[in-house]
């Protein structure tokens, strides 16, 4: 894709249609001592069509909870998360990528990618063709018939991304998909994910705790904070696409990383400071 096309895309995004709406969605649960604990204070936000949005925050900030509520895997305690037509997201209509690749160990790479076709009852021959295409796109044509335990962590995650794309969903949910990978594999897969996002025009909601990863990939970052989990700020990332790793040397990239870092490491007022015993 040409650079001008990318610019047009970025410009279009500002007025793109809303895809997903978080209407005061919150989560609270009852702990072992029978107390109500707020895992996530009400979140109100929007995800636009074709947008790559990241939920960024430390562990315990409720980012995964928010993602799973959006995907309908968890029920919000209050509020709701709906598509533009007011309906909640329907299972089977989106792709979900888990932190652990969550491949079924008794299925080959190819059969794992075919799982959505089996579950959703999609036509066999066209699904097979698409599975082969997707595996080729993630560079695993040579590993079609390998089992998950024969694949490296990065390869497993590639298979799981191909699986999430098989039924051609418009929306992709990703829960720290590269969190368990080494830094080099992670950067490689980051660029690959950007390519998928641009070439297939998918909207992505991406959970991560890695600031640079979020800035590199996102059009918009929803910065979250813990104790209790809440949405702190939305930050637009207007770096030109496609971005290469060289963008990390861009002053604008650096500025956004610093801004997010300052948000995440705000000085904390310590209420009960333990006094050293004499």
């Amino acid at each position: 894709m040409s650079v001008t096309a990318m610019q047009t895309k970025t410009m279009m995004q500002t007025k793109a249609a809303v895809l997903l709406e978080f209407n005061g969605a919150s989560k609270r649960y009852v702990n072992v001592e029978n107390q109500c604990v707020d895992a996530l204070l009400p979140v109100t936000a929007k995800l636009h069509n074709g947008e790559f949005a990241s939920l960024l925050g430390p562990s315990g900030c409720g980012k995964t909870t928010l993602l799973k509520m959006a995907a309908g895997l968890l029920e919000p305690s209050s509020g709701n998360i709906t598509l533009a037509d007011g309906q909640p997201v329907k299972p089977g209509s989106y792709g979900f990528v888990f932190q652990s690749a969550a491949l079924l160990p008794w299925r080959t790479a190819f059969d794992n990618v075919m799982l959505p076709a089996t579950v959703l009852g999609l036509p066999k021959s066209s699904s097979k063709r698409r599975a082969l295409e997707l595996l080729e796109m993630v560079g695993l044509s040579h590993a079609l018939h390998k089992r998950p335990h024969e694949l490296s962590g990065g390869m497993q995650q590639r298979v799981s991304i191909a699986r999430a794309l098989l039924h051609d969903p418009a929306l992709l949910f990703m829960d720290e998909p590269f969190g368990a990978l080494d830094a080099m594999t992670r950067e490689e897969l980051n660029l690959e994910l950007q390519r998928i996002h641009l070439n297939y025009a998918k909207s992505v909601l991406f959970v991560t705790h890695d600031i640079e990863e979020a800035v590199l990939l996102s059009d918009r970052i929803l910065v979250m904070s813990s104790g209790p989990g809440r949405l702190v700020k939305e930050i637009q990332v207007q770096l030109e696409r496609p971005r290469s790793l060289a963008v990390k040397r861009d002053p604008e990239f650096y500025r956004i990383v610093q801004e997010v870092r300052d948000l995440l490491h705000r000085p904390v007022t310590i209420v009960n400071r333990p006094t050293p015993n004499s």
Partner: protein
Amino acid sequence: MQVSFEESTASGSSQVQKPEKSHTVARCAVFSGRPLEYGVSLFIAIALLVLAEVAAGEKWISPMVLPKPSAVFSVLTEGLRDGTYIVSIVSSMSSLVVGFILAFVAAIVIAGVISSNRFIERVFTPYIVAFQSMPKVAVAPLVVLWLGFGELSKIMIVVIVCFFPMMVNTVQGLKVRHQDHDELMRSLGANSWQQFLLMRLPHAVPYIFAGVRIGVIFALIGVVVAEFVGTNAGVGFSMLQAKSQFDVPSVYACLLILMVMGLVLNFLTSICERRVAMLMGESAAGRRY
């Protein structure tokens, strides 16, 4: 210790020494490893047989207790040659296999139903515990009363005896939660039947096989008990007949046949298990996902 010290100080030619060293290790393995143990096992068996032969021949022990091994052997070969034992083995094995397969299918189906629903599980758990606590072979006389002498009650007894261990293990396997795979299936909108078939049942396979291992041995016990209480065919029946005629060598021959049957069944189970484990994507190291 000293050898290795000399080796390392003698010269720097470690490339020459390396293969020599590994050769020594290999030779040691031949002498201290399995062949030696197997040899000792075999020697003990031969020694015991010779001792038994002499003891029985010299009438140190009553022939009612211990027949000559040679007599047992000749009864065995004769029975195998004239086909009487073959008929018995086929009769026992066919009831065993049919009963086992019926019990296996029933165990999977019922385990699937029980584990699908908390309510059903809680309602039926007391019954399962009660039946499990009862020695199932004790039902054999009742089954003969119901179904009469013959093949049918034999199969039924086998089913009753080997159903429970397989069912209970399968339930346990089906109840194990795999959160990621669970959420994956739900994210695709899989219905509960798809979740069972595509995820929970394959995950339960190691548990099912633990049940099958027990079930196979229970099935053999079941078939012998069934033949003791109410049939006119099979290895157990031949044994009972020999006993009533004080034909001790034949009783021993039947015991040997049952032992070999057990070994064969165990061996077949192991082969199946390894095959399935490979199909299930288990690596050679036995790593499971």
